[in-house]
């Protein structure tokens, strides 16, 4: 009997470990390394109505215990994602969480409506927080009313449960979480990246062509843990936590903070086998700490 399975709205997960959006493409590269069916779920790269090339390069820069990225939501567009990527992914026994993005509310509605009807898409992840999209995108993620509104409208058209991905670049994450819960969100995922920047000391110029980028990796984990801790005690919908996870110990930290599942982003670049490795280690760690089932420890850090 599994000690790792987790049930969330729309999602029956074998285990609570999934690659985070944008850090796993559409899975093709990793499928050559291991069986994708071992994963709890897969969060695919943000999908927009039209194909996007994204930002000019350099798109990544290294930081202390983290990295900045300014990919700019590059993706082949809704039609190809459905017709090629999701179809290809359907050979694996793994639920897909479709990360969707857009420049306008209509964009979100459009993508949500179509992608949510694809059979292996079990949930949507509304990316209202991508810091790299210039035209308006950012405000979705920092103004509660707007976030609520997008959530409502997407909820209205989606065939599957909707998770909203929150931006950490706010003064009060609880307020944002409440807003999307009121908007009808079935779950919350957090955190997206913190906006950051690096300058090349040799040239005096920004390293990223886009100037700023999103900070991810172990550096941001304390911020992520704090936000999961705050939000999980504020709303009644489950949280998929992420930000700097590198090990099974980190997974426990997120569960203690109040997450019901977790996503692994940057660590996939450091070790492409990290997800199966964590799944494997997690079982052993439950023994070590005498935890009967992973869900037993959700929120154990609360007062």
């Amino acid at each position, binding site marked *: 009997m599994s000690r790792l399975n987790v049930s969330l709205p729309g999602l029956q997960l074998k285990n609570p470990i999934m690659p985070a959006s*944008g*850090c*796993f*493409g559409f899975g*093709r*590269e*990793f499928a*050559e*390394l291991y069986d994708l069916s071992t994963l709890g779920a897969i969060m695919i*790269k943000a999908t927009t109505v039209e*194909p996007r*090339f*994204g930002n000019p*390069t*350099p*798109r*990544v*820069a*290294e930081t*202390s*215990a*983290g*990295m900045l*990225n300014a*990919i700019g939501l*590059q993706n*082949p567009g809704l039609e190809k994602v459905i017709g090629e990527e999701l179809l290809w992914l359907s050979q694996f026994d793994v639920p897909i969480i479709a990360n969707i993005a857009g420049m306008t509310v209509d964009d979100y509605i459009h993508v949500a409506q179509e992608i949510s009807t694809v059979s292996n898409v079990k949930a949507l992840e509304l990316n209202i927080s991508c810091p790299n999209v210039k035209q308006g995108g950012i405000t979705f993620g920092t103004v509660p009313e707007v976030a609520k509104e997008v959530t409502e409208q997407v909820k209205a058209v989606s065939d599957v449960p909707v998770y909203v991905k929150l931006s950490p670049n706010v003064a009060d994450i609880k307020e944002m979480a409440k807003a999307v819960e009121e908007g009808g969100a079935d779950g919350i995922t957090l955190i997206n990246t913190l906006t950051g920047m690096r300058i090349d000391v040799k040239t005096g110029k920004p*390293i990223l062509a886009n100037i700023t980028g999103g900070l991810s*990796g*172990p*550096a941001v984990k304390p911020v992520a843990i704090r936000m999961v801790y705050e939000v999980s005690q504020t709303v009644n919908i489950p949280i998929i936590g992420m930000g700097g996870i*590198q090990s099974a110990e980190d997974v426990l930290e997120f569960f203690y903070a109040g997450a019901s599942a977790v996503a692994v982003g*940057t660590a*996939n*670049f*450091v*070790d*492409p*086998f990290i997800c199966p490795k964590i799944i494997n280690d997690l079982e052993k760690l439950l023994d070590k700490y005498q935890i009967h089932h992973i869900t037993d420890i959700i929120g154990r850090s609360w007062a």
Partner: protein
Amino acid sequence: MITVEKMVVEAQIEIAKNIFKLVLFGDLVSKVTTPGQFVNVKITDSTDPILPRPISIAHVDQDKQQLVLIYRIEGKGTELLSRKQKGDVLTIIGPLGNGFPIYDMKRGQKALLVGGGIGTPPLLELSKQLVMRGIEVIHVLGFQTKEGVILQNELQHFGKTYLATEDGSVGMKGFVTDVIEQYQITFDRLYTCGPTPMLKALEANFPEKEIFMSLEERMACGIGACYACVRHTCNQDDDLGYRKICSDGPVFRTGEVVL
């Protein structure tokens, strides 16, 4: 097949100022298929630095299960790498990317290999394999100064090797293109790796020739998953409109991607 392996350092030698030759031992070697592939080197187990560093495979010895990396100290990662000693262990992700196409060249044809600075290393394995297939190779290497010269002797072994330095401290004063012009070097195909201005000059000087060039870009995953390393295709009607340097390259035919 890409693997992740803890490879053992067999030797580390400073072959020029701040340029090191690192010999690694492990199973991964058997997976290397073409000259011009690279590996991603995780320099420490710690988060400092966190990202692996892409380095070209300069030489492969399947019998000894060894591969050789030749790199220059640029920043923190390569500096730390240079401190590794015999017996130390490094986590290597690879082999990555598609190397230089060699199987379509015919015995007796002539290949010109042009290396610029620290772009020279992947040409070593390439040259060896071309010669093994009966291709005639000529090398033109460009460096800033005498101090930066590497692999001249090794390449000499496989074919005629010309040198250019910007300051003229050794070889011809000038650029690789000056050498090719001066000696009126002819060739059937050109393979090159080096700084972008050099690649552009070669492309401009030999518009009718078949040129394969190895490109660089800041990377994260190295396997094609993160979209960090893309270039626009030259062909605007291309189905995708872009290529990933790590997994579609790093070697491209001129005219495929925008330099």
